[in-house]
């Protein structure tokens, strides 16, 4: 009669005996694993590569449709003709609002009749001026309707120049292609040419992060320094390890949130 210990011994012996014939199988499996592992890595890399290509190269091509402006416009030429630089056409109205893209009323002083030989000018006079139709310009810098932006505060108040946000468009001889985001309907210039959101110049992007960046860098000089973009807030929460909604950033005008009021910029 076996004791409990004997039984245990038997089992271990059996196990040892069985190991012999099985070891060759294990070896085979290992060999196969090395081959299969290579394949797996290969497929992983392949997947990675394909998705990177899709994400970085194909996706932006699909996301944006290209549109041509109704007529071309030569900024360089016009800037030379006018006395007051950008503000000759992109001016502040009497009530302090900014006029944006010029209307027919501003063009008509010179273009009532055809001035030169440019086909675009001929088209402009014939199609728009004589028919009293406004040109449906595609606005590269058009922000969503909920964004409130005051040109007066930035240009007149902070003495900024146009280039800081709009780049060197005033030095262009023709209008670039307008790329429209198929999802949002806004211009690609808001997110920026780089699909990754990287930028070299201040005028490369016009997202809220870019507003916030400038407002933070110049914190000493400007009033609205507490702009919390969703991205920054997320990063701040992670870094500070505080649950969302409990941290106290800044000391803005709002009693409830201790921040500057959202509706200063968001309508």
């Amino acid at each position, binding site marked *: 009669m076996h004791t409990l210990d004997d039984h245990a011994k038997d089992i271990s012996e059996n196990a040892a005996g069985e190991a012999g014939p099985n070891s060759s199988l294990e070896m085979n499996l290992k060999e196969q694993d090395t081959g299969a592992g290579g394949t797996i890595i290969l497929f992983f890399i392949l997947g990675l590569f*394909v998705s*990177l290509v899709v994400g970085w190269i194909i996706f932006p091509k699909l996301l944006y449709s290209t549109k041509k402006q109704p007529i071309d416009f030569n900024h360089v030429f016009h800037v030379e003709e006018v006395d007051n630089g950008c503000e000759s056409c992109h001016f502040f109205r009497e009530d302090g609002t900014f006029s944006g893209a010029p209307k027919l009323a501003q063009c008509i002083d010179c273009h009532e009749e055809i001035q030169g030989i440019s086909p675009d000018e001929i088209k402009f006079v014939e199609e728009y001026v004589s028919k009293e139709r406004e040109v449906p310009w595609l606005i590269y810098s058009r922000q969503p309707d909920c964004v409130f932006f005051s040109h007066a505060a930035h240009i007149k108040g902070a003495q900024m120049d146009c280039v800081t946000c709009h780049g060197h468009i005033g030095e262009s001889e023709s209008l670039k292609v307008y790329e429209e985001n198929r999802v949002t309907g806004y211009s690609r210039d808001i997110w920026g040419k780089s699909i990754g959101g990287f930028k070299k110049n201040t005028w490369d992007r016009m997202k809220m992060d870019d507003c916030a960046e400038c407002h933070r860098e110049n914190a000493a000089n400007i009033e609205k320094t507490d702009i919390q973009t969703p991205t920054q807030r997320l990063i701040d929460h992670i870094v500070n390890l505080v649950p969302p909604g409990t941290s106290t950033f800044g000391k803005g005008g709002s009693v409830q949130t201790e921040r500057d009021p959202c509706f200063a910029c968001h309508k």
Partner: protein
Amino acid sequence: MKIGRRGFLSFVIGGAAGTALSPLPWKMMDDSSIWTQMWPWTPVPEDGEASYVNSVCTLCSGHCGITVRKINNRAVKIEGMEGHPVNNGGMCLLGLSGLQLLYGPMRVKTPLKRTGKRGQGGWEKISWNDAVSEVVEKLRDIRSEGHPQTVGFISGSDRGTVSRLFERFLTAYGSPNFMRMPSVRDSYELTQYLMQGVEALPGFDFENADFILSFGSGIIDGWGSPVRMSRVHSAWQSADVKVIQIEPRLSNTAAKSDKWIPINPGTEAALAMGLAHVIVKESLYDAAFIENYVEGFYDWKTRVIDKYSPETVASMTGIDTRTIVVLARGFANASKPLAICGRGDGSSPVSLKECMAVNALNALVGNINKKGGVWAVSEPDYINWPEIEMDAKASAGMQHERLDGAGSKTYPFTRYLLPRLPETIDSGEKYPLQALFVSEANPIYTLPGTQAVRKTLDEIPFVVSFSSYMDETAQNADLILPNHIYLERYEDVPTPVGMIQPLIGLSKPVVDPQLDTRHVGDVIIQMAKGLGGSVADTFPWDSYDSCLKETLGGKWNSLIEDGFWSDSGLRIQAFETSFDTASGKFELISRDTGSTLQFKPVNIEGDEKLYPLVLIPYDSIRLANSFIADPPFVIKTVEDTVLKGEHVFVEINPKTARAKGLREGQRVVLITPKGKAEVKVHLFEGIMPGLVALPRGLGHTAWDEFLADKGINFNALIGPVEDPDSGLDVAWGIRAKIEKA
């Protein structure tokens, strides 16, 4: 190479890792959040240059100056005009919401002709030329048959060039049946005519008064010119002016007054006489004024002393004698006391006796036509047109008595009695109406006895509405010739209600007409030209605009520039020349009518035994109650204790409710001799026991989806009650009962 399960999974994992390292998910997250916040169907306001147009709001008779902000060609905001004598920059919520009346879905977009049965809503579009020639043909037929008097016109106003064109057209055509919608102005006009001998508008110098005695007038509930009234109301609070509100219900006005005195409804005239009793008895009156400029004081005094002792009045009004005596002393001892009448928003007349009694109070303290008092304001005299040319047919037609009985032997001094129309037409005593024109009025909705009014209109073979909106009357018309709305047209607007300084405002086009509408003034001129003969000759103008420009003459330029023209400086008339009565004095007892001032309370309809309760209406600044109904912004502001969903609440005192076993929010049926309706109960301690109150301005069946079928139209539950002295409808309520639903 064979792709196994593992290979596939690793491809997917690699793809996921790559996707995470690519901008795709992050960019899509950003874009989709922008997309969801900027739905393509969300309207985005146009961007552009702002401009401002000064005009006058004519949504009520308050006639505020407005400054409309425009972006490019779209009106985006209506603001009060700074420096305007009525509202000086202020604005009411109806006026603010005017843009919804401009761009909203309730507008009639083109001339419409009825197809199918009346009121069923079948319409076909027709051209303006066809529409006008159809009207002309109809009118020509009626006239050639020799019944020009059978054409009637209901207008919201009888002042200004547009209304005068209507009247002129009817006269030249041969009909005396031009009718104005009723209001408390009817009572005041008649009172001032009888007591002061003048045809004038009532004006009130609220800005300079220091004690306001209001007989139920909703000073901040829409009475008078609402924005001016809330401005003076605020000024009174800081200047410590006493405001005493006498009415059976704690209205907003009552709640904001210095003292609210609940009164048995309909007994206001008795209270006025009781106050006069105290003032006379204690010699608190202005003796100099009474002595020199008042006729019949001693007769009147005897009656007042005999019949209206505080005890008698206390038993009638339910106000205790002490309160009456204190109130009379307070009124008489104030330096510039002012008594006013006209319940709620003043859209219903009061009995002649009540208005005369209140005016007598003002006369006792000598504040007629002077600072802080009540004024008889003469109409600015600028409409001087050539004589109306009347041919034989017109003269014959004009010989007929008016259908409503105004100016008849029974009611010789009353000018318009529109609420009597259903009854007189029904009785068949005179002549039937064969055609009816309606402009800026919604009689089917706003006149008491909705069913009777609708029946009357149903019997008129040809009804033309000039309404810009699909209101109840337009819905029941044969032809709708939509007028431009006030933001699209020129129109002169003479002295706003209650102002003491003669004023002309100019309503002008803020935007181009948005739809295929036409100025009603132009349509009238075209109708006249179409009829030819003397009718056409009476209208020498090519268009309404040229008529208006010619009429205003030298004032045109200043009107265009400032939006209003005002008489430079008030001319305070000496008392010697103020009164144009037979005696040349203020007549406390009118010789013209021989009114005895015997107080006969206005009995309301219904048997007390069958209908133990009394239903009264109440008005609110949040409920438009004229030819204009609440646009969506305004109906949104109505409280949940007034209207919840489709159900309107009746206010009942908790005591009455307890006696009847009713609880808050309970659904009940409100029954009056005129009709019944399902309502909900709202317990309110601010209403006297035994009464139930229902708001006016709800229960529309037309207009738009935001307003139609919400609540009950008060006018469907009440009928007119004729004032024996003036013929005016002076129903202040109706007997009612409540049954559990």
